[in-house]
């Protein structure tokens, strides 16, 4: 790695750190006028402190919007390349893309084509998804032939039975409600806690300019 590249990495890491700290401080201080007490002008001071975060977040929104344009360009590049290799799906994709854009422009913002094609196809896929889930569920014990696989299947059967609107299954429904409220709720919270911790660690890595995108 050359000296210029090293300086470049250091500079990008510094810029990331500075922008991150300024945004975090601006969000923390600017949103909370109570921090400055009941003195006159505290609201203006809080507004002034909120300005850098506001500007930087607007910039981020513009950059994200630009990245979607890059995404569209990438989509077209990929499928033109695949079409050149004789992939028929890409021809359908490119034709659909062109026709949808033409329809939208020619009919002044009419999205009926999207609604008439995309929505029914997605509905059909959602129906297929039920079959896939059923198929996958039926093979759980084949893949995980242990106590946890057995427990998984038992819980699925119990929840399905408990969802049936039959008076004879009232005790099963009570079990199902308890399962959804206590173990499922606890599991969901545990998953969210773990993801929140991971998000903080990743955020700190980006804030300190240690993320790979700043390291060259």
């Amino acid at each position, binding site marked *: 790695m050359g000296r210029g590249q090293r300086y470049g990495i250091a500079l990008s890491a510094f810029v990331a750190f500075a922008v991150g700290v300024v945004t975090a401080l601006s969000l923390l201080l600017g949103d*909370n006028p109570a921090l400055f007490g009941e003195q006159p002008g505290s609201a203006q001071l809080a507004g002034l402190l909120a300005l850098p975060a506001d500007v930087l977040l607007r910039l981020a*929104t513009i950059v994200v919007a630009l*990245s979607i344009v890059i995404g569209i360009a990438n989509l077209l590049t990929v499928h033109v390349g695949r079409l050149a290799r004789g992939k028929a799906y890409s021809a359908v994709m490119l034709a659909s893309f062109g026709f949808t854009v033409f329809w939208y422009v020619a009919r002044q913002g009419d999205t009926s084509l999207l609604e008439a094609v995309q929505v029914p196809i997605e509905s059909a896929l959602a129906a297929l998804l039920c079959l896939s889930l059923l198929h996958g569920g039926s093979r759980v014990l084949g893949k995980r032939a242990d106590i946890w696989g057995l427990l998984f299947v038992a819980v699925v059967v119990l929840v399905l039975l408990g969802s049936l609107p039959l008076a004879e299954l009232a005790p099963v429904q009570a079990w199902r409600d308890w399962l959804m409220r206590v173990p499922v709720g606890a599991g969901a919270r545990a998953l969210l806690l773990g993801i929140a*911790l*991971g*998000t903080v*660690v990743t*955020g700190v890595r980006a804030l300190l300019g240690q993320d790979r995108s700043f390291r060259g």
Partner: protein
Amino acid sequence: MDQTTLQVYAVLFVFATALLAYTARYFQRRGRRRPQRRLAGMGRIAEWTSRSIEANRPLHLALGGAAVGGDKTAIALAEAEFFYHVIEGAQASDVAPIISTAAGSSVPLGQDTLRRALPEGGDSLSRVHWYPGELAYAAAVTATMKEDEPAAHILAGSFGAELALMIDSADRRGQGSLALSDRLDGQAVAYAMADEVLLGEELFAAAGYASEDGRAQADAIVLDVWRALVIMGVGIALLLEVAKRMPWLNWALVLSVSAILLVFGLLIYRRR
């Protein structure tokens, strides 16, 4: 708790994480590497990478719906870091891995990951596929499974129940799959159907397992430390709650039992 107090705690938490991260990295650099706990499923990645190289078939790395710029930016960054190490391991293959995403703003992230990980950047433009919409994404990925015949699929990111369509299709074609999701429905599908499964939060530690990179391993250690502290906190809160309802419980007893459990836990951990 008022907003100011909450903000102060949040800042302290971030500072503590930064301090922990630097401490862990210091010890990693000094060569005092802590053996990592085993993550079931990570071992298969090396096998799939070898298969990809030998059979000249790409690996498929799915970012899912995590988008840069939204509330899942950290997930997208963690995915990119994990995939960087996976791609680096598959450098010898003549066919570059395919990265797919359901979020347009993650396309540059995928391209950047490929460019950095592959020698001379590889074909980073045409190997990133964007399929907008969750169900449309799942359908398009199943088409990729037929057209490109990937050796295996690493579906690590933000997925819902549509993950079932992708894993089912991969399974029918004899292509291996490792899956995890930050969403509960996606995680349940991953557990039931994928060949290998990780928990959603393990995405943030996965880079440390896929490589010998000291920084990534240090981050995994920081996560483990925080997780242990959260478990201890929850345990103590539970004990205190129970103590309120049982008059014969007192602080001395709770502390004694906690100390004994802690010692037992440490002994079991060291023996393992």
